[in-house]
């Protein structure tokens, strides 16, 4: 599903590469934790998958596509197959829960009938039954993140990227979010989650990829967060 072949990314004006000679595979339906200290290259890794950045060297394949050969106007179609969740939710404050989720489908031109059918299903899936008409500022942090997950998943992407989705949420609520992500993973969606949350990584027992100074220093299935931090 995601294939990195000897990928190096060096940002302009920086001598040390953000990612260096990274080669790895993520299979369809896998759940992967991406761990490592700040600045270790986790976000760069996710941005490369989204093709927000291009690698300085090496090749990246996402969903069978060679990103280097993808023309700019085709990038939106790649992103329709990738859902994204962030630490800061990124909801539209002037739209209700329902419209925040529907927005993701409206802007890619889905028919209204389809939206009316799919959006309530996804809102139920993330556990926000009966809160369709709430505005984001009426929701708790955990609930807002559920809306963000619903928005990321509503188009049934093949890959869900999560960049520290529990970073702004207390541990108890985080477990709820992880359950939602796990549920999404069970539908066959590949989930890649960058995180600093050791308790979550340890409790989930999924594949763990650890980055340090842009290099993969550990890649184990059913791993834990590690001792160093």
């Amino acid at each position, binding site marked *: 599903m995601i294939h990195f072949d000897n990928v190096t990314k060096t940002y302009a004006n920086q001598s040390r590469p953000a990612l260096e000679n990274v080669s790895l595979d993520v299979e369809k339906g896998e759940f992967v934790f991406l761990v490592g200290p700040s600045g270790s290259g986790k976000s760069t890794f996710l941005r490369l998958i989204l093709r927000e950045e291009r690698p300085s060297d090496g090749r990246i394949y996402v969903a069978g596509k060679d990103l280097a050969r993808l023309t700019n106007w085709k990038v939106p179609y790649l992103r329709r197959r990738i859902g994204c969740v962030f630490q800061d939710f990124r909801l539209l404050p002037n739209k209700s829960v329902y419209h925040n989720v529907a927005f993701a489908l409206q802007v890619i031109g889905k*028919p209204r009938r389809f939206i009316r059918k799919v959006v309530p299903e996804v809102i139920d899936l993330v556990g926000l039954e009966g809160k369709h008409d709430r505005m984001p500022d009426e929701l708790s942090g955990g609930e807002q993140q559920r809306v963000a997950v619903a928005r990321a998943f509503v188009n049934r992407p093949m890959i869900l990227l999560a960049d520290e989705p529990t970073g702004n949420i207390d541990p108890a609520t985080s477990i709820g979010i992880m359950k939602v992500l796990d549920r999404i993973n069970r539908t066959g969606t590949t989930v890649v989650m960058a995180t600093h949350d050791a308790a979550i990584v340890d409790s989930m027992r999924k594949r763990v990829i650890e980055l340090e100074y842009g290099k993969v220093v550990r890649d184990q299935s059913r791993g834990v967060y590690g001792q160093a931090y």
Partner: protein
Amino acid sequence: MRAQFVLQEVWTGLRRNLTMTIALVVVVAISLALLGTGLLFVKQVDNTRTYWQGKVQLSIYLCTTTSVSPQCHQNGPATQTEKNQIAADLRALPQVEKVYYESQAQAYQHFRQDFSRDPSFTNLVTRSEIPDSFQVKLRNAAADFNIVAGTVQGRPGVDQIVNDSSILAKFYKLLDGARNAVVIIAIVLIIAAVLLVANTIRLSAFNRRRETAIMRLVGASNFYVQLPFLVEGIITSRMSLRPASSSPAPR
């Protein structure tokens, strides 16, 4: 493509930016209207100039029985021989293109026509009070006036010599001034309008930055991301075009 959704987004965008949109519409409308007025003015001034250029450029008024100037008093009204002599001398000058005689009857007729709206005035003036004249068309009005005027100046029978272009010069100056003022104001306003347009787009982009970021993230095509800006721009410019094109203009 879902038109209703796009229009809704545009509507929210315009409403959120309402003051800026109004300012933009007003400034663009005024500057376009002024520019149009200026261009029409330029055309009109040129037209006026060529119109008057083709007209008589020198009028030599002759003494009549009622003339009051001292030289007419001295010599009495112009006799037919004097008139013939003047006409012949004028025609002999190389600077003169054409000379024709306007009799008192013709002059009176013109006078009545020119002041036809004011019969109380035309009734006061009798035919004998309107002088006859030679209307001289020069080849080059500005350069040759003094030469031509000098040959007949002070002759018996000649009352006054009037240079039409000296009367028109003031008029031209006024027209040119008005035209320049209109064009300068229009240019200043257009610069302001361009800056305002740039600012409005920037503000609109800033207002929509969340929407735009999410649209890109969920894979909206570039066209879809740019469409609301495009439609907003079209609506605003249409709104300014209407008052600009229907505003009163000369002609």
